């Protein structure tokens, strides 16, 4: 993967310039992280009395803030951290499983959803919503709607056979990414309120899974296209069910794509702010909310905040360094075929 162009050896001068640019950007990237790190080792008076740059030389570092956050506030820190881990891992795994099946289906099966069926569905939903807003009980409308749907579906589909294809479904799924979360979050809030799921991990897991599903479908579809069909066909001839073929042959072959997609989705869920802001309060609070809530009336306490930020970013940074090679590969496949 990391091949370089042997013939194209840059001259000494251009090498020097390249290193200068690379070092400059490394500084731009690393300095903020370094500053957060050193601030986490400072005492309040050291932060307030002007910038100190290098621990041990400029100032005497102390672990006071770390102790305060991790020992004194143990429960208040651990709960959001635990929430974040559970919510982001579970939602990512679910999104990966459900999205992978959809992506696989879209590459291996022919779907022909009839336009007439879709319009019938939309019309019935509209009728149900209209009816219930005029006071007809919604469950009655729902039963009528379902009955009508199954009665009308057959005749309509025969009459108007025009159908969409796999690409239309894929586009429809992937284009959900365009939807700004702020548009859908209020109804989702009301929905979870009705289900008594507000401020629980379940609410966040379900929502994050739905938000991340389009990315998974988009990235994995191209992975599955490139997996040769012969293996699957011979397994099918041997009598394996489609599910077994998917689980035992296709998924193992797609591991690099799965890893990249998982990491990408995980980072999204790990850092998500807006949806968590709406859907959780104290119980299901996640780390981004905890960090954002640090701006209290006494002004920001940079030393504590730095500790929180570091606690939040260290796990993902370690993951990123370990899995770096997967990320670029995985993202590229989607972007090339897109």
């Amino acid at each position, binding site marked *: 993967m990391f091949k370089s162009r042997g013939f194209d050896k840059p001259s000494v001068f251009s090498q020097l310039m390249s290193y200068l640019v690379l070092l400059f950007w490394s500084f731009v990237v690393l300095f903020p992280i370094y500053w957060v790190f050193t601030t986490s080792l400072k005492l309040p008076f050291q932060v307030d009395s002007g910038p100190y740059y290098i621990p041990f030389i400029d100032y005497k570092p102390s672990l006071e803030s770390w102790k305060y956050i991790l020992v004194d506030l143990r429960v208040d820190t651990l709960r959001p951290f635990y929430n974040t881990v559970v919510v982001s891992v579970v939602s990512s795994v679910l999104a990966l499983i459900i999205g992978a099946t959809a992506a696989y289906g879209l590459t291996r099966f022919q779907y022909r959803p009839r336009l007439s069926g879709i319009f019938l569905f939309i019309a019935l939903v509209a009728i149900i919503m209209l009816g219930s807003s005029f006071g007809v009980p919604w469950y009655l409308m729902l039963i009528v709607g379902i009955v009508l749907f199954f009665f009308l579906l057959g005749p309509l589909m025969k009459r108007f056979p025009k159908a969409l294809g796999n690409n239309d479904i894929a586009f429809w799924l992937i284009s959900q990414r365009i939807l700004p979360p702020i548009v859908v979050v209020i109804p989702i809030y009301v929905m979870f309120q009705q289900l008594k799921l507000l401020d629980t991990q379940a609410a966040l897991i379900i929502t994050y899974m739905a938000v991340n599903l389009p990315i998974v479908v988009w990235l994995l579809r191209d992975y599955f296209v490139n997996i040769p069909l012969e293996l699957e066909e011979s397994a099918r001839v041997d009598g394996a069910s489609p599910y077994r073929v998917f689980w035992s042959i296709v998924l193992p072959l797609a591991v690099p794509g799965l890893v990249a997609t998982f990491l990408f989705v995980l980072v999204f869920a790990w850092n998500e702010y807006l949806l968590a802001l709406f859907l959780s309060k104290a119980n299901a609070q996640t780390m981004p909310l905890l960090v954002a809530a640090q701006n209290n009336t006494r002004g920001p306490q940079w030393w504590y905040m730095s500790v929180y930020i570091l606690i939040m970013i260290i796990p*993902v940074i370690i993951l990123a360094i370990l899995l770096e090679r997967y990320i670029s590969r995985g993202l590229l496949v989607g972007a090339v075929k897109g």
Partner: protein
Amino acid sequence: MNQSISNPKKQLEPGTNPLFNWLNRHAGLVFILPSVIIVLALSIFPLIISAYLSLSRLKFVQGGLEIKFVGFANFRKLLLGSERKHFRGDLGVLSIWQWLFVALVVALLIYLLSRYIRSQEFKIGGLIYRIVVFSILSWGSYYLMQNLSSDGRPGTVVVTLIYVFVGLFFQYFIGLSLALITTQKLPGRRFFRTIFLLPMMITPVGIGYTFRMLTDTSKGPFKPILRAFGLEEYSWVSDPWGARWAVVIGDVWQWTPFVFIILLAAIEGLPNELFEAAHVDGANRWQIFWNITMPQIIPVSATIILIRMIEAFKIIDLPNVLTFGGPGTATESLTLQSFFNWRTLDVGGSAAIGYMLMFISLFIATSYANLIYQKLRRF
């Protein structure tokens, strides 16, 4: 694992279980249905309900909700009523340079239109579509200049557009330059590319606070530098453009890695023979870049730009943490404005802003996809 594949009939035994049979025959449906149901339940239905909410006034009363249908009142308030200045900004009178800019945009669009009319793919539907899109773009550029003129003030729409496009511009060019440098044969480039990846992993909330620390003029690390330039008294957060730039810089810092890493993989994936042939023919590095590398990575770039554009419209965390949307409303993005409305329990207004955001991003994304993206992908 392989054992079970080569001998699967033991577990399968077709025909014994009707449910199993049904599942096998409808495997395609089973594969796709969960995703379809989830998207319907958590995107499409909320979207429809949100449309209804944006047309109503909603109150949280004891034990439930009270919804009153008010028609387009929420949208009217945004576009023409009391929220007008907040949403659309103050409209000033254009200076001569700004008129020139608008004229330039219009001239460019007319030129593109005339080229389309003379081209092979001319269709009357395409012409109408282009005329509509170009008129909106011309009006948009005029409107943008009104906001940016000396007695104007950008509203949340223009602020969001600034975040999206200024951010995208810098992300793409910095990302591309870094990718080009890192694909050279340089010792230690593996190290640099891992480093460059990091900002993407950091939560935007954290970045917001980090940049607030860094831009703090009294305790921040750049205090000596600012003092040397006599800017010690200058406060980012109380100057509208300073605050907006701080948000843009934070955004660029975070998302340049995304562009960088995909372009890097794309350039590395190019076949070596192309470069060797060009080298043999005596092309210099600049020619190789313009005539070989660039055409090859334009399709990928088109996709990257589309993705980043779509994602950038949703920006909220960074301005919310970095500046709280201030000074005044100078750094508020549309999502943030919508969130503030929700917090004051103006649910209808919040939904209306959300819808406006969706219309704007949908219009720009589809225009880009139909008019530019398709062409670039064919390169």
